C-alpha cells in the first residue's frame, strides 16, 4: 500500500503536467500551472527511497528518487517553476495564451521526468520532450532576435539528441541494461569508451550551451520573456549538466588527457564569462554571463573528475551543488534584473536584424542547411536531367526504329513482296527435294 501511495506521485509528477498540456483537460482548472507542480511537491515530502519499475514502458524504464542530490534538484526545480509560473502570465501586454501554457507544461513534464528518470532511455526521452517544449516556449510570441536564438537552439538540440542517441546505442550494446549505475560500470570496464564519452560530452555540451557552444544562450537571455529567461538556467542548462553527471562513468575511469582538455575549456569559459560580464554590462546580460561562468566551473570540476577518479569521489557532490547554484542563481538574477528594470518601460533590447555581430561560427547551422539545399536541389536534379537527356536520345532512336518498322510493315503489306520473298524458300525446297529424289 505504501509503495502504491509513494509511486503515485512519482508517476504523476511528469504525467500530470503532460495531461494538463492538453487545453481541453485544464480548461476548468484554476491555475493549472501550479496544480501540475503538486505531485512533485508531494514527492518532496515522501520518505526516501521511492522508485518504480516500468518494464512494459518503452524499452523498459523506471522512475525513482533515491539520493539526496536528486531530492535537492527536485526542490530547486519546484522552486524555479513556481516562480516562472508566477511570471508566466503576469506580462502586462499579453492576454493569457493557451499555447504558452501548454508549452510551459510540456517542458515541465519533461524536466521533472528527466530528474526522476533512473535509466538512460528515460532520461533521454524526457529530456527530448523538455528540449522541444522549451524550444516552443522560447519561440512563442518572440521577436526576430529570439527566433534566431531559438533556431540555433533547435539545431543544437537536434544534433545533441543525435549524439546522445548514438551514445545510448553504444551503451545498450555494452551494458546489459540501461540503469545509470550499470552503464557507468560497463563503460568503465569497456575496452573502448572513447566514442561513448565523446558522444555524451558533445551531446550535453550542445544542450547546455557550454562555451564555446554557448552562442544561443546570449540572445535567448537578452530577449525572451522573463518567465522563460528565469527557466533558462534551471531547465536546459541544468538538466544537461545533470545528464553529464549521470551518463559519464565518473569516478570509475581515469582519463587524464581528456580531463585536462575539459578543464582547460572550463577555465576558458570562466575567463570568457568574466570578460564578457565586465566589458559590456546591460543588466540582461548578467544572468547569461553567470550561467556561462557556472557552467565553466562545472566543466572544470568534471574535467578534474575525469582525470582523477579519487578526486571525483571526494568532490563529486560539488557538481550537484553547482547545478543547484546554476538553476537558482540564474533564476534569482533574472528575477532581480526584472525587479530592477520594473520602472524603465523600454527593455532597450537592440533589435538588430541578422548582422555582422553574429560570429562566423554562429552561422554554421544556416550554412549546413544551405549546403544541403544546394546539394540536393542542384546536384540531384542536374544528374537526373543529364540522365533524362540520354533517355530522350534513346527516345529519338526508338522513333527512328518505329519509322523503320512502319516502312517494313508497308513493304509487307504489298503482299506480293512478302510471299515472293518467303515462299521462294518453299519452292527451292520443292525443287531441291524433287531433284534429289530423282537421283
Amino acid at each position: 500500500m505504501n509503495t502504491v501511495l509513494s509511486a503515485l506521485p512519482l508517476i504523476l509528477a511528469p504525467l500530470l503536467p503532460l495531461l494538463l498540456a492538453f487545453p481541453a483537460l485544464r480548461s476548468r482548472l484554476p491555475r493549472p500551472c501550479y496544480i501540475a507542480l503538486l505531485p512533485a511537491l508531494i514527492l518532496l515530502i515522501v520518505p526516501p527511497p521511492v522508485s518504480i519499475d516500468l518494464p512494459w514502458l518503452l524499452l523498459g524504464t523506471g522512475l525513482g528518487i533515491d539520493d539526496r542530490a536528486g531530492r535537492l534538484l527536485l526542490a530547486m526545480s519546484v522552486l524555479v517553476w513556481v516562480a516562472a509560473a508566477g511570471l508566466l502570465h503576469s506580462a502586462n501586454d499579453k492576454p493569457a495564451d493557451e499555447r504558452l501554457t501548454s508549452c510551459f507544461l510540456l517542458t515541465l513534464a519533461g524536466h521533472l521526468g528527466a530528474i526522476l528518470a533512473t535509466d538512460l532511455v528515460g532520461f533521454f526521452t524526457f529530456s527530448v520532450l523538455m528540449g522541444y517544449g522549451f524550444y516552443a516556449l522560447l519561440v512563442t510570441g518572440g521577436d526576430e532576435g529570439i527566433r534566431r536564438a531559438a533556431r540555433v537552439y533547435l539545431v543544437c538540440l537536434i544534433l545533441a539528441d543525435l549524439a546522445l542517441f548514438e551514445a545510448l546505442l553504444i551503451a545498450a550494446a555494452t551494458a546489459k541494461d540501461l540503469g545509470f549505475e550499470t552503464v557507468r560500470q560497463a563503460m568503465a570496464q569497456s575496452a573502448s569508451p572513447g566514442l561513448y564519452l565523446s558522444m555524451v560530452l558533445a551531446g550535453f555540451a550542445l544542450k547546455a550551451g557550454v562555451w564555446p557552444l554557448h552562442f544561443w544562450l546570449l540572445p535567448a537571455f537578452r530577449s525572451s520573456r522573463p518567465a522563460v529567461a528565469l527557466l533558462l538556467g534551471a531547465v536546459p542548462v541544468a538538466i544537461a549538466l545533470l545528464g553529464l553527471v549521470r551518463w559519464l562513468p565518473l569516478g570509475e575511469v581515469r582519463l587524464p588527457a581528456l580531463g585536462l582538455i575539459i578543464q582547460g575549456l572550463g577555465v576558458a569559459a570562466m575567463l570568457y564569462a568574466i570578460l564578457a560580464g565586465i566589458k559590456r554590462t546591460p543588466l540582461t546580460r548578467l544572468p547569461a554571463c553567470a550561467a556561462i561562468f557556472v557552467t565553466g566551473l562545472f566543466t572544470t570540476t568534471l574535467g578534474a573528475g575525469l582525470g582523477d577518479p579519487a578526486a571525483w569521489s571526494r568532490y563529486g557532490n560539488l557538481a550537484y551543488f553547482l547545478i543547484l547554484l546554476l538553476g537558482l542563481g540564474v533564476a534569482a538574477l533574472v528575477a532581480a534584473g526584472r525587479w530592477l528594470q520594473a520602472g524603465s518601460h523600454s527593455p532597450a533590447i537592440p533589435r538588430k536584424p541578422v548582422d555582422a555581430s553574429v560570429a562566423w561560427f554562429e552561422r554554421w547551422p544556416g550554412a549546413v542547411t544551405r549546403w544541403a539545399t544546394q546539394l540536393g536541389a542542384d546536384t540531384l536534379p542536374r544528374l537526373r536531367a543529364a540522365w533524362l537527356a540520354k533517355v530522350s536520345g534513346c527516345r529519338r532512336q526508338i522513333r527512328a526504329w518505329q519509322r523503320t518498322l512502319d516502312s517494313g510493315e508497308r513493304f509487307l503489306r504489298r503482299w506480293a513482296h512478302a510471299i515472293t520473298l518467303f515462299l521462294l524458300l518453299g519452292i527451292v525446297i520443292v525443287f531441291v527435294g524433287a531433284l534429289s529424289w530423282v537421283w
Partner: protein
Amino acid sequence: MSDIHWPVIVILLPLAGGVACFLWPRRSVLLGLLTALGVVACVAGLGGQVVEQGAQRYAVGGWGAPLGIDLYADGLSLLMLTVTAVVGLGISVYSSGYFERARYGQDRARHFWPVWLFLWTALNALFLSADIFNLYVTLELLGLAAVALVALAGGADAVSGAMRYLLVSLLGSLFYLLGVALLYHSFGSVDIAILAQRVEPSPAVWAAMGLMIVGLLLKTALFPLHFWLPSVHASAPAPVSALLSALVVKASFYILLRLWLEVFPFANAALAQLLGLLGAAAVFWGGFQALRQTRLKMLIAYSTVAQLGYLFLAFPLASITGWTGALYMLLSHAAAKTAMFMAAGNILYFGGHDRIADLDRVVQRLPLTITAFALAGISIMGLPPSGGFIAKWLLLETAIRSAQWWWGGVLILGGLLSAAWVFKVVGYAFTRSEVPHEARAVPATMEWTALLMAVLAILLGLFAPWLLALLEIGSPFGRENAG
C-alpha cells in the same frame, strides 16, 4: 453412354444445325443457340468418354485406316474441341444480340447462322481428323466459311479483306496439299498414325515438310506472313473477328503441331530455332505495331499477331512442358481474344467508332465492357492469376530449364509490350470527359458475354492442373524424356 459415337455426333450436329438454319432462316437465332448448346453437351459427352477410356479412334462407316476416314480423339483434340465449344457458345450468344439489330438487318443475320455453324462443323472435323488429307479438306472448308463470314460485314473494307483472305487461304491450302501428295507418294498412306510409323527422313519428306509448313504458317499468319491478318480481322464483324482470332488461326497451328510431333519428329533443331525466331519476331513486331495503332480493332488484330508468335516459341524448346505451355497460351488467348473483340464490338456498336483517342466517352458508359477488356488484357499480359500467366510460367520454366533463356526474354518483353497497349486503352476509362455522346444501347447479352469470356480467361489460371491432366490423355506430346 460409352458406346455412343460421340465423335461423329460432334461433327454432324453443327452441320445439321447449319442446314436447319439455312432452311428456316426466321428461326435461325433459336436454332443456332440450341445447336450451340447441343454441341457443348456432345463435346462434354465425348470428353467423358475420352477421360474414361483414353484416346478414342473411330472408323467412320467401319472402313478403317488406310482406305476409310478415321476420327481420332486424344487429349489434344479434346482440348481444342472444348475451346471451340466454349468459345463457340459464347460467340453464338453474343451474335444473337449483335446481328439482331437494325444495322445488321435481318438479311445478314440469316446468312450468319448457317455459315457459322458450317464453320463450327469444319473446326470440329478438323480437330478430330486422323489423316492429313482429311485435314486438308476440313482446312479448306474452314477457310471458305471464314471468308464468307468476313464478307458478311459488307462495305469495301470487309469485302476486300475477305477477298484477300480467300486468296491467302487457298494459297496456303494448295501448298499443304502439295506436301500431302509428296508424303502419300513416299509412304502410301495419309493416316497420321501410320505415317508416324513409316516415316523416315528423305528428300521428298523434307520437301513435303517445307511445303506443308509454309502453307500452314501462311494460314497461321506467323510473321512475316501475317500481312493479311490485321486488316481482315479488323474489318470483319465483331463476333467473326473473335472467331477468326480465337479459333480459325489456331486450327492451322493445330495441324502444324500434329505434323511436327508425329510425322516430322526428325525435324532438325535449326528449323525449330528458325520457327522460334520468327515467333519472337512476331511477338515484337505485333507488339510494337499494336502499340502504334489508332483504331481499337486494328490494335487487337496486331496483338493476335504477337500472341501467335508465342505459340511458336515452343518449337525450339521442344519439351512436354513447352508444348503444354504453348497449348495453354492458345487456350487462354482464345478466351481472352474473344472477349477483347467482343468488347471492341460493343464499343463500336455503342459509339459507332473505335478510334482509340476518342474512346473515353464511350468506355465510361460501358463499364462491363471495359472491365471485360481489362480482364482479358490481364490474361494477354500474362499477369497472375490468368491462363496467360500459367502459359507464360510453363514456357518460361522450360526456357530456363533447357538453358535457352533468351526465349524467356522474348516472353518477358512481349508481356511488357502487351501491358503497354492494354493500359493505353484501359487508361481511357479513367479520364474525365463530360462530352455527351450519341449512343445506342448495347444489349445486355453482348456486354455479359464479353465479360464472361474474359472471366473465363482469368479462371483458366486457376484450373490448370485439371486441364493439363486432360491434355495428357493419349500423351500427344510423347513421354517425358525428350525435354
